[in-house]
């Protein structure tokens, strides 16, 4: 095979190289550091564009594959590739990182250099984890992700940042070390059966395992990913981490890191352990439903804006998991699409909350009221993003949530009914929050003098809103990219499992585009 241009490697390691370069810049020259970080992330985003446009929609398999030997005696290789799902998530990551750099322009005043270095390292780890197809390589990136995020929360976070940072680190680490053992067990089992010792995930897909072993290994993988998603009852680190993290940290945490958990289920846990997935489907679905409703109820009671958005993530990710575990085309594609939506909408919400916080240095809902009078532009953007979060038709959230509910109804009516109740709760907490913050009389004197959006902030929110509408009104390009992958994926899962509601005759893309 002719060695193609290693685009994925470039996309993965450009931020790392950038981080190293950034370290060399003079500390005093803050504008230079900021501009360099922005340029780096923009170049990174530009580099990732060919991944989207040159992506072959017909090909359900891996594309842009790169393979190099790393440790052949052990079957560890440097194996990269993306399919329709991971490609979209890579795009999301590159996009959100640019916004993160932009939104930290004013908010971060200390240790600016280290801040952007952490961000770039995080970007490398995230994109690496999304592209890695070798379990050891994946685990490398997966664990590396922890460190910069830990620093982002711990150094630039709020008052309880130390507690939040350590909680985040330890929760995630418990899950991932057990997954490491499961990876090794899988490796030796596969090697013992076939004589081929490899960490290549596609070879391991074919490993036949006794059901009991599958249960244990799936449990280890699922624990690790469920903590990351986070699924109820492993979500308790999330509100703390989000509340204490700096704005950009929250954006990237909600936008990408949580998706890593779902992605882990998709890429690893489900195809590797089909029998266990069949057995675990009701459990996961119920946990997802509990997460949807519990997250929503918690949101209603929150006094802190950021904590509210954090709990709404628990609820939204519950939808994603439920949709994917419906194992039909609508639910699956809806779930994947909702991952992107959540990145855009919840990322947007965190950005707005961060902008308000920068002005007012409080996030308590009770401290606000009537903000729309002094900040009409911010209010408009906030409204649109809020509506997209509660899935109003015409916004991106609607497409994803509708497909998920459709898929879930087709696989299990009861799940569907319960999940749909979360939609109503979602409208309740989001709109009520919006009403208390933005409408009514200005009750606090401090709120009268707030300044409306700057050009930089408006540009950030414009790009978010552009995607809200693009993905809501014309989702076709996105679905086109993932249709083949999703169909192929579900066929594989179907071949391995018995539970699989019929794929249906309506191509999901058409529903989205109606």
């Amino acid at each position, binding site marked *: 095979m002719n060695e193609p241009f290693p685009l994925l490697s470039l996309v993965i390691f450009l931020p790392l190289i950038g981080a190293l370069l950034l370290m060399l810049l003079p500390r005093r020259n803050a504008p230079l550091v900021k501009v360099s970080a922005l340029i780096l992330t923009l170049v990174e985003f530009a580099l990732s564009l060919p991944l989207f446009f040159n992506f072959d929609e017909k090909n359900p398999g891996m594309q842009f594959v790169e393979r190099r030997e*790393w*440790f052949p*005696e052990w079957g560890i290789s440097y194996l990269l590739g993306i399919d329709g799902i991971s490609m979209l998530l890579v795009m999301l990551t590159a996009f959100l990182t640019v916004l993160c750099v932009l939104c930290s322009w004013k908010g971060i005043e200390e*240790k600016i250099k*280290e801040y952007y270095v952490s961000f770039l390292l995080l970007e490398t780890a995230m994109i690496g984890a999304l592209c890695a197809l070798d379990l*050891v390589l994946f*685990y*490398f990136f997966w*664990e*590396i992700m*922890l*460190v910069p995020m*830990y*620093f982002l929360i*711990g*150094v630039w976070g709020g008052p309880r*940042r*130390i507690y939040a*940072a*350590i909680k985040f*680190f*330890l929760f995630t*680490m*418990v899950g991932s*070390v*057990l997954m*490491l*053992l499961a990876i*090794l*067990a899988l*490796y*030796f089992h596969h090697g013992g059966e076939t004589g081929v010792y490899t960490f290549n995930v596609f070879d391991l897909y074919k490993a036949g395992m006794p059901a009991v072993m599958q249960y244990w290994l799936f449990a280890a993988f699922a624990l690790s990913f469920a903590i990351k998603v986070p699924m109820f009852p492993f979500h308790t680190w999330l509100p703390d981490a989000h509340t204490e993290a700096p704005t950009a940290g929250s954006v990237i945490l909600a936008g990408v890191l949580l998706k890593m958990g779902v992605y882990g289920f998709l890429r690893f846990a489900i195809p590797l352990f089909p029998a266990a997935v069949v057995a675990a489907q009701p459990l996961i679905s119920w946990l997802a439903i509990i997460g949807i409703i519990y997250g929503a109820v918690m949101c209603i009671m929150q006094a802190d804006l950021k904590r509210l958005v954090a709990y709404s993530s628990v609820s939204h990710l519950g939808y994603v998991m439920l949709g994917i575990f419906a194992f039909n085309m609508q639910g699956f594609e809806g779930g994947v699409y909702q991952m992107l939506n959540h990145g855009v909408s919840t990322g947007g919400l965190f950005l707005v909350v961060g902008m308000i916080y920068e002005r007012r240095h409080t996030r308590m809902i009770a401290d606000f009221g009537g903000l729309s009078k002094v900040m009409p532009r911010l209010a408009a953007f906030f409204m649109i993003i809020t509506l997209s979060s509660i899935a109003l038709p015409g916004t991106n959230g609607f497409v994803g949530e509708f497909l998920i509910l459709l898929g879930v109804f087709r696989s299990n009516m009861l799940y569907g009914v319960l999940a749909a109740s979360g939609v109503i709760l979602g409208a309740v907490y989001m709109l009520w929050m919006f009403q208390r913050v933005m409408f009514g009389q200005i009750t606090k004197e401090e709120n009268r003098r707030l300044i409306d959006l700057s050009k930089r902030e408006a540009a950030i929110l414009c790009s978010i809103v552009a995607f809200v509408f693009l993905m809501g009104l014309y989702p076709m390009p996105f679905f086109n990219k993932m249709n083949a992958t999703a169909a192929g994926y579900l066929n594989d899962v179907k071949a391995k499992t018995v539970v699989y509601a019929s794929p249906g005759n309506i191509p999901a893309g058409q529903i989205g585009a109606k």
Partner: protein
Amino acid sequence: MVVKIPELAFGFIVPEIIVTVSAVVTLLLAAFGRRAIAGTLAGAVALIGAGLALVFTLSSWDVDASIFNGLYTIDPFGVFFKSLALIVSLLVTLLSLRYVEREEIVKGEYYSLLLFGVLGMMIMVSSTHFITIFIGLEVMSIAVYVLCGLLSGNPRSAEASLKYFLLGAFATAFLLYGMALVYATTGILDVREIAGYVASGKFVLTPMFMMGMALLIVGFGFKTASVPFHMWTPDVYQGAPTSITAYMATGIKAAAFGAFLRVFYTAFLPFIGEWSGILWLIAVATMTVGNITALVQDDVKRMLAYSSIAHAGYILIAFVIGDPFASSSILYYVLVYTFMNIGAFTVVILLGQKDRENTGIESYAGLAGRHPLIALSMTIFLLSLAGMPPLAGFMGKFYILSAAVKAKYYWLAVIGVLNSVVAAYYYLRVIMAMYFRAPSGEQRQPDFSPAYSIVIALSVWALFYMGIFPRDVLLIARKSIGIFM
């Protein structure tokens, strides 16, 4: 292939000779040299001696010879551990150049004892004969008993020395008693011959023989600082000069594991059923006690002492399994552990002053703001100790765990990884102090010296290199354990 060389084969022990000669020269320099330069000169001699010895050791990589009537062995396994001991001595000598000056330790003796200690390690790991192993162990131990107490005027140092000596002597007696019991049953002192005798079928497992094995476990357990034979470790590690702490935590531990591994995997492997259960318990206890106790330490030096106990526990995971092939992970781990530990101790030294070690965690507060590079390197060492990729500590853990999983010791592996999460907490505490907290108390300039920077830079490089390209080192380790196959 074993080459029988009946004549005295001094060609094979050039490294040992070089180390001995340089040890004697440094001692003489201290006695007769001019005071002003004698110390520095002694340090230079020690460096050159260790460096030369390392070159000669590495050049005997492909040799497999039994010399001096079977009392001494040159094989890749021994060469691996000898090189490791020499690397430790090089790094420790380097960082001592400034440290002994600051602490006003008598220099000539210091370097001389350091080299004698290394000589002991080299002898101990290059023999299959109980007597030679014992002599090596004693040469090493006696040198270190003295080294621990070299901080004159510091009662903690004297306490460390005395404690280590008394308990060490006790443990040595156990070891010797164990060897005696094994000899009493078999009439053989060479572990390879014992293995042959056992394989011949004439051997009957007697309680006396088992007692001998048990006592050997106690003796080696003491030197490797395994629970429940670890009681001396925290006090000795904390009281000793920090450079010697680093030396003990890496060099002695590695040499003890080397001899332990050689004896048990050569002679006693057929009886693995008898000893692996005991070691299983010891491994679990070592990891857990080490980590849980480290959690509550507010002194970084003491925390590193407990963490070194915990790391002995991780190494024991691979030991318990009794798979010769998997034992290469032990070799890899001790090598990796050497770099991360010496690196961390160098930072500890760097932040101290004469009579004020500043090892409390509060003196690390805000370090990142004042000295970003020191804080960054410490972070790298601590993250490696915690087993985060892409650092070598992760790969070390990875191989140990893979050995356990391969042999289906699932519970041991699970206990191991959960322990590593506990460990992450206290390593992160130091990172937290450095990065997340504001500096407290008076701020003193750290004790900069190029010698420290070289040690730190080398360690950082080694951790990244062995973490990202583990293959080279692991293949070397794998070749070394060829003697067990």
